[in-house]
Protein backbone atom coordinates (compact mmCIF):
# COMPACT_ATOMS: atom_id res chain seq x y z
CA UNK A 1 0.00 0.00 0.00
CA UNK A 2 2.85 2.42 0.70
CA UNK A 3 6.25 0.95 -0.11
CA UNK A 4 7.80 1.24 -3.54
CA UNK A 5 11.31 1.79 -4.89
CA UNK A 6 11.49 4.46 -7.57
CA UNK A 7 14.51 4.98 -9.83
CA UNK A 8 15.21 7.94 -12.07
CA UNK A 9 14.63 6.73 -15.63
CA UNK A 10 17.59 8.66 -17.07
CA UNK A 11 20.33 8.21 -14.48
CA UNK A 12 19.26 5.06 -12.64
CA UNK A 13 19.60 6.97 -9.38
CA UNK A 14 17.41 5.65 -6.55
CA UNK A 15 14.87 8.39 -5.83
CA UNK A 16 13.33 6.77 -2.77
CA UNK A 17 16.65 6.86 -0.94
CA UNK A 18 15.41 8.12 2.42
CA UNK A 19 12.32 7.81 4.62
CA UNK A 20 11.31 11.26 3.40
CA UNK A 21 10.46 9.59 0.08
CA UNK A 22 10.22 5.88 0.85
CA UNK A 23 7.08 5.31 2.89
CA UNK A 24 7.81 2.70 5.52
CA UNK A 25 4.46 2.05 7.25
CA UNK A 26 4.23 3.62 10.69
CA UNK A 27 2.12 2.32 13.57
CA UNK A 28 -0.80 4.47 12.42
CA UNK A 29 -0.69 2.91 8.91
CA UNK A 30 -1.02 -0.66 10.16
CA UNK A 31 -4.38 -2.29 11.04
CA UNK A 32 -5.04 -4.48 14.06
CA UNK A 33 -4.33 -8.15 13.47
CA UNK A 34 -6.29 -11.29 14.24
CA UNK A 35 -3.78 -14.06 14.74
CA UNK A 36 -4.46 -17.69 13.87
CA UNK A 37 -2.18 -20.71 14.19
CA UNK A 38 -2.01 -23.86 12.11
CA UNK A 39 0.12 -26.42 13.89
CA UNK A 40 1.47 -29.34 11.84
CA UNK A 41 4.70 -30.54 13.44
CA UNK A 42 7.32 -32.05 11.14
CA UNK A 43 7.44 -35.84 11.66
CA UNK A 44 11.10 -36.30 10.67
CA UNK A 45 12.83 -34.61 13.60
CA UNK A 46 12.31 -34.87 17.36
CA UNK A 47 11.35 -31.19 17.85
CA UNK A 48 8.87 -31.13 14.95
CA UNK A 49 10.61 -28.09 13.47
CA UNK A 50 10.35 -26.80 9.92
CA UNK A 51 12.17 -24.13 8.04
CA UNK A 52 9.77 -21.25 7.60
CA UNK A 53 10.37 -17.77 6.31
CA UNK A 54 8.15 -15.08 4.94
CA UNK A 55 5.03 -17.15 4.31
CA UNK A 56 2.72 -14.26 5.23
CA UNK A 57 4.63 -11.87 3.02
CA UNK A 58 3.83 -14.03 -0.04
CA UNK A 59 0.06 -14.34 0.33
CA UNK A 60 -0.90 -11.02 1.92
CA UNK A 61 0.08 -8.62 -0.89
CA UNK A 62 -1.92 -10.72 -3.38
CA UNK A 63 -4.94 -10.71 -1.04
CA UNK A 64 -4.74 -6.95 -0.55
CA UNK A 65 -4.26 -6.18 -4.25
CA UNK A 66 -7.13 -8.53 -5.17
CA UNK A 67 -9.30 -6.64 -2.72
CA UNK A 68 -8.29 -3.33 -4.35
CA UNK A 69 -8.99 -4.52 -7.92
CA UNK A 70 -12.29 -6.03 -6.74
CA UNK A 71 -13.34 -2.82 -5.03
CA UNK A 72 -12.46 -0.72 -8.07
CA UNK A 73 -13.80 -3.17 -10.62
CA UNK A 74 -10.61 -3.09 -12.67
CA UNK A 75 -8.31 -5.93 -13.77
CA UNK A 76 -5.01 -4.51 -12.62
CA UNK A 77 -3.65 -1.94 -10.20
CA UNK A 78 0.14 -1.57 -10.02
CA UNK A 79 1.76 -1.79 -6.59
CA UNK A 80 1.97 0.03 -4.31
CA UNK A 81 -1.74 0.92 -4.22
CA UNK A 82 -1.06 4.43 -2.93
CA UNK A 83 -3.89 7.00 -3.05
CA UNK A 84 -2.35 8.43 -6.23
CA UNK A 85 -2.28 5.02 -7.96
CA UNK A 86 -5.86 4.21 -6.90
CA UNK A 87 -7.05 7.62 -8.12
CA UNK A 88 -5.33 7.04 -11.47
CA UNK A 89 -6.91 3.59 -11.79
CA UNK A 90 -10.34 5.15 -11.24
CA UNK A 91 -10.03 7.85 -13.94
CA UNK A 92 -11.14 5.68 -16.93
CA UNK A 93 -14.27 4.70 -14.98
CA UNK A 94 -14.98 8.32 -14.15
CA UNK A 95 -14.67 9.22 -17.84
CA UNK A 96 -16.94 6.32 -18.81
CA UNK A 97 -19.57 7.48 -16.33
CA UNK A 98 -19.58 11.04 -17.70
Amino acid at each position, binding site marked *: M*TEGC*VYDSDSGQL*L*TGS*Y*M*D*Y*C*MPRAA*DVPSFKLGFTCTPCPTNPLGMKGCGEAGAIASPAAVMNAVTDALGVRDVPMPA*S*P*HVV*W*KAMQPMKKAAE
Partner: protein
Amino acid sequence: MENFAYHRPAKVADAVKAMKKAKDGKFLSGGHTLIPALKQGLANPTDLIDLSGLNKGGVKVGAKSVTVSAGTAHADVAADKGLKKAIPGVAILAGGIGDPHVRHRGTIGGSVANNDPAADYPSACLALGATIHTSERKIPAEKFFTGMFSTALKSSEVITAVEFPIPKKSGYAKFPNPASLYAMVGVFVAQMGDGSVRVAVTGAGPGVFRVPEMEAALAKNFSAKSLEGLSVKSKGLNSDMHASAEYRAHLIGVMARRAVTAAK
Protein backbone atom coordinates in the same frame (compact mmCIF):
# COMPACT_ATOMS: atom_id res chain seq x y z
CA MET B 1 29.41 18.72 8.05
CA GLU B 2 31.92 21.56 7.70
CA ASN B 3 33.17 23.67 10.59
CA PHE B 4 31.34 26.88 11.35
CA ALA B 5 31.36 29.63 13.98
CA TYR B 6 28.44 29.38 16.39
CA HIS B 7 26.68 32.47 17.80
CA ARG B 8 23.80 32.63 20.23
CA PRO B 9 22.84 36.29 20.59
CA ALA B 10 20.40 37.43 23.28
CA LYS B 11 19.10 40.42 21.32
CA VAL B 12 17.63 40.77 17.83
CA ALA B 13 20.03 43.63 17.06
CA ASP B 14 23.00 41.41 17.95
CA ALA B 15 21.69 38.64 15.68
CA VAL B 16 21.48 41.12 12.80
CA LYS B 17 24.98 42.39 13.58
CA ALA B 18 26.43 38.87 13.68
CA MET B 19 24.82 38.08 10.33
CA LYS B 20 26.18 41.27 8.73
CA LYS B 21 29.68 40.35 9.91
CA ALA B 22 29.47 36.74 8.74
CA LYS B 23 30.87 35.79 5.33
CA ASP B 24 28.12 33.28 4.64
CA GLY B 25 25.87 33.15 7.70
CA LYS B 26 22.65 31.27 8.37
CA PHE B 27 20.04 31.88 11.04
CA LEU B 28 19.12 28.79 13.05
CA SER B 29 15.72 28.43 14.69
CA GLY B 30 14.27 24.96 15.40
CA GLY B 31 16.80 23.48 12.98
CA HIS B 32 14.53 20.83 11.52
CA THR B 33 15.35 21.84 7.98
CA LEU B 34 18.77 23.43 8.40
CA ILE B 35 20.46 20.75 10.53
CA PRO B 36 19.69 17.90 8.09
CA ALA B 37 20.92 20.16 5.27
CA LEU B 38 24.18 20.75 7.18
CA LYS B 39 24.62 17.04 7.83
CA GLN B 40 24.22 16.23 4.16
CA GLY B 41 26.57 19.01 3.13
CA LEU B 42 23.77 20.78 1.25
CA ALA B 43 24.42 23.91 3.32
CA ASN B 44 27.90 24.92 4.46
CA PRO B 45 27.59 28.26 6.24
CA THR B 46 30.64 29.94 7.78
CA ASP B 47 28.53 31.14 10.71
CA LEU B 48 25.44 29.72 12.41
CA ILE B 49 23.45 32.32 14.33
CA ASP B 50 21.16 30.52 16.77
CA LEU B 51 18.01 32.54 17.43
CA SER B 52 16.83 30.44 20.38
CA GLY B 53 18.33 32.95 22.82
CA LEU B 54 16.15 35.82 21.56
CA ASN B 55 12.88 34.82 23.17
CA LYS B 56 11.12 31.78 24.47
CA GLY B 57 8.25 32.18 22.07
CA GLY B 58 4.65 32.76 22.97
CA VAL B 59 1.18 33.61 21.72
CA LYS B 60 -0.63 36.89 22.39
CA VAL B 61 -4.33 37.02 21.63
CA GLY B 62 -5.58 40.56 21.02
CA ALA B 63 -9.01 41.93 20.12
CA LYS B 64 -8.43 41.85 16.36
CA SER B 65 -5.36 39.72 15.88
CA VAL B 66 -3.23 36.96 17.34
CA THR B 67 0.52 37.52 17.44
CA VAL B 68 2.78 34.50 17.62
CA SER B 69 6.40 35.26 18.40
CA ALA B 70 8.82 33.76 15.90
CA GLY B 71 10.44 31.26 18.26
CA THR B 72 7.17 29.56 19.20
CA ALA B 73 7.20 25.80 18.58
CA HIS B 74 4.34 24.32 16.54
CA ALA B 75 3.18 22.25 19.53
CA ASP B 76 2.85 25.41 21.65
CA VAL B 77 0.82 27.13 18.94
CA ALA B 78 -1.44 24.08 18.68
CA ALA B 79 -1.95 23.91 22.45
CA ASP B 80 -2.65 27.61 23.04
CA LYS B 81 -6.26 27.87 24.25
CA GLY B 82 -6.72 31.51 23.27
CA LEU B 83 -5.44 30.93 19.74
CA LYS B 84 -7.51 27.78 19.35
CA LYS B 85 -10.65 29.76 20.14
CA ALA B 86 -9.75 32.78 18.00
CA ILE B 87 -8.35 31.01 14.89
CA PRO B 88 -9.13 27.27 15.07
CA GLY B 89 -7.66 26.71 11.61
CA VAL B 90 -4.18 27.77 12.73
CA ALA B 91 -4.34 25.50 15.80
CA ILE B 92 -5.33 22.53 13.60
CA LEU B 93 -2.58 23.37 11.12
CA ALA B 94 0.14 23.66 13.79
CA GLY B 95 -0.99 20.43 15.47
CA GLY B 96 -0.66 18.55 12.18
CA ILE B 97 2.83 19.64 11.13
CA GLY B 98 5.26 16.73 10.68
CA ASP B 99 5.51 14.51 13.74
CA PRO B 100 5.83 15.19 17.51
CA HIS B 101 9.60 15.73 17.25
CA VAL B 102 9.18 18.37 14.58
CA ARG B 103 6.29 20.03 16.43
CA HIS B 104 8.28 20.44 19.62
CA ARG B 105 11.43 21.86 18.00
CA GLY B 106 10.30 23.49 14.77
CA THR B 107 9.17 27.11 15.01
CA ILE B 108 6.74 29.31 13.16
CA GLY B 109 9.50 31.82 12.33
CA GLY B 110 11.72 29.12 10.89
CA SER B 111 8.92 27.63 8.82
CA VAL B 112 7.82 30.97 7.40
CA ALA B 113 11.40 32.13 6.67
CA ASN B 114 12.27 28.89 4.87
CA ASN B 115 9.10 29.02 2.74
CA ASP B 116 9.29 25.37 1.76
CA PRO B 117 6.71 24.89 -1.01
CA ALA B 118 5.21 22.02 1.04
CA ALA B 119 5.22 23.79 4.43
CA ASP B 120 1.88 24.34 6.17
CA TYR B 121 2.21 27.83 7.68
CA PRO B 122 2.52 29.87 4.47
CA SER B 123 -1.07 28.89 3.57
CA ALA B 124 -2.42 30.25 6.87
CA CYS B 125 -0.38 33.45 6.46
CA LEU B 126 -1.65 34.09 2.94
CA ALA B 127 -5.29 33.09 3.60
CA LEU B 128 -5.60 35.16 6.75
CA GLY B 129 -3.60 38.10 5.38
CA ALA B 130 -1.02 37.82 8.14
CA THR B 131 1.69 40.37 8.78
CA ILE B 132 5.27 39.19 9.19
CA HIS B 133 7.10 41.31 11.77
CA THR B 134 10.86 41.48 11.28
CA SER B 135 13.87 43.16 12.83
CA GLU B 136 13.29 46.15 10.57
CA ARG B 137 9.70 46.27 9.24
CA LYS B 138 6.29 44.68 8.88
CA ILE B 139 5.67 42.73 5.69
CA PRO B 140 2.20 41.67 4.50
CA ALA B 141 2.03 37.94 3.63
CA GLU B 142 1.05 38.74 0.01
CA LYS B 143 4.42 40.43 -0.45
CA PHE B 144 6.42 38.08 1.78
CA PHE B 145 6.28 34.74 -0.06
CA THR B 146 8.02 35.37 -3.37
CA GLY B 147 8.56 31.83 -4.71
CA MET B 148 10.05 28.44 -3.97
CA PHE B 149 12.17 28.76 -0.79
CA SER B 150 12.34 32.51 -1.30
CA THR B 151 10.88 35.40 0.65
CA ALA B 152 11.05 39.19 0.81
CA LEU B 153 13.52 38.90 3.73
CA LYS B 154 16.93 40.52 3.31
CA SER B 155 19.88 38.34 4.22
CA SER B 156 20.38 39.95 7.63
CA GLU B 157 16.68 40.40 8.48
CA VAL B 158 15.18 38.33 11.32
CA ILE B 159 11.51 37.45 11.71
CA THR B 160 10.34 38.41 15.20
CA ALA B 161 6.64 37.51 15.06
CA VAL B 162 3.73 36.55 12.83
CA GLU B 163 0.47 38.45 13.34
CA PHE B 164 -2.75 36.76 12.18
CA PRO B 165 -5.98 38.79 11.91
CA ILE B 166 -8.84 37.00 13.70
CA PRO B 167 -11.31 35.75 11.06
CA LYS B 168 -14.97 34.85 11.41
CA LYS B 169 -14.19 31.27 10.44
CA SER B 170 -11.06 29.37 9.48
CA GLY B 171 -10.26 25.83 8.48
CA TYR B 172 -7.31 23.83 7.20
CA ALA B 173 -7.16 20.45 5.53
CA LYS B 174 -4.13 18.73 4.11
CA PHE B 175 -3.24 15.58 2.29
CA PRO B 176 0.17 14.68 3.67
CA ASN B 177 2.84 12.97 1.63
CA PRO B 178 2.61 9.50 3.19
CA ALA B 179 6.39 9.25 3.61
CA SER B 180 7.57 12.72 4.64
CA LEU B 181 4.25 13.97 6.08
CA TYR B 182 4.81 17.31 4.35
CA ALA B 183 1.71 18.71 2.65
CA MET B 184 1.27 17.13 -0.79
CA VAL B 185 -1.67 19.55 -0.90
CA GLY B 186 -2.84 21.75 1.96
CA VAL B 187 -5.70 24.25 1.74
CA PHE B 188 -6.40 26.99 4.27
CA VAL B 189 -9.76 28.72 4.07
CA ALA B 190 -10.57 31.92 5.95
CA GLN B 191 -13.82 33.84 6.08
CA MET B 192 -13.08 37.34 7.35
CA GLY B 193 -15.35 39.62 9.39
CA ASP B 194 -16.42 41.56 6.28
CA GLY B 195 -17.62 38.35 4.62
CA SER B 196 -14.71 38.13 2.18
CA VAL B 197 -13.12 34.70 1.79
CA ARG B 198 -9.54 33.76 1.05
CA VAL B 199 -8.35 30.34 -0.06
CA ALA B 200 -4.62 29.57 0.00
CA VAL B 201 -3.00 26.40 -1.29
CA THR B 202 0.35 24.97 -0.25
CA GLY B 203 2.25 21.87 -1.39
CA ALA B 204 0.69 21.87 -4.85
CA GLY B 205 2.76 24.48 -6.63
CA PRO B 206 6.23 26.04 -6.49
CA GLY B 207 4.94 28.32 -3.75
CA VAL B 208 1.78 29.13 -1.83
CA PHE B 209 -1.02 30.63 -3.99
CA ARG B 210 -4.64 31.76 -3.79
CA VAL B 211 -7.61 30.43 -5.76
CA PRO B 212 -9.80 33.43 -6.75
CA GLU B 213 -12.60 31.28 -8.29
CA MET B 214 -13.08 29.42 -5.02
CA GLU B 215 -12.91 32.64 -3.03
CA ALA B 216 -15.67 34.22 -5.13
CA ALA B 217 -17.90 31.14 -4.83
CA LEU B 218 -17.39 30.92 -1.07
CA ALA B 219 -18.00 34.65 -0.56
CA LYS B 220 -21.48 34.11 -2.02
CA ASN B 221 -22.16 31.02 0.05
CA PHE B 222 -19.65 29.66 2.54
CA SER B 223 -20.30 25.95 2.15
CA ALA B 224 -18.53 22.98 0.60
CA LYS B 225 -21.40 22.75 -1.91
CA SER B 226 -20.38 26.06 -3.46
CA LEU B 227 -17.11 24.46 -4.53
CA GLU B 228 -18.71 21.57 -6.41
CA GLY B 229 -17.78 21.61 -10.08
CA LEU B 230 -14.95 24.09 -9.50
CA SER B 231 -11.61 22.68 -10.58
CA VAL B 232 -8.09 24.01 -10.51
CA LYS B 233 -5.98 23.64 -13.66
CA SER B 234 -3.03 21.27 -13.29
CA LYS B 235 -0.75 23.43 -15.46
CA GLY B 236 2.15 24.76 -13.38
CA LEU B 237 1.51 22.48 -10.40
CA ASN B 238 4.21 20.23 -8.96
CA SER B 239 4.60 16.78 -10.43
CA ASP B 240 6.86 14.22 -8.80
CA MET B 241 7.04 10.53 -7.95
CA HIS B 242 4.50 11.05 -5.15
CA ALA B 243 1.79 12.80 -7.11
CA SER B 244 1.21 14.06 -10.63
CA ALA B 245 0.08 17.62 -11.26
CA GLU B 246 -3.35 16.27 -12.23
CA TYR B 247 -3.71 14.44 -8.92
CA ARG B 248 -2.62 17.53 -7.00
CA ALA B 249 -5.24 19.59 -8.88
CA HIS B 250 -7.85 17.02 -7.88
CA LEU B 251 -6.69 17.11 -4.25
CA ILE B 252 -6.98 20.90 -4.11
CA GLY B 253 -10.72 20.55 -4.69
CA VAL B 254 -11.07 17.78 -2.10
CA MET B 255 -8.98 19.57 0.54
CA ALA B 256 -10.76 22.89 -0.06
CA ARG B 257 -14.15 21.24 0.53
CA ARG B 258 -12.83 19.55 3.67
CA ALA B 259 -11.35 22.82 4.96
CA VAL B 260 -14.66 24.63 4.44
CA THR B 261 -16.58 21.82 6.17
CA ALA B 262 -14.14 21.87 9.09
CA ALA B 263 -14.06 25.68 9.36
CA LYS B 264 -15.26 27.26 12.57
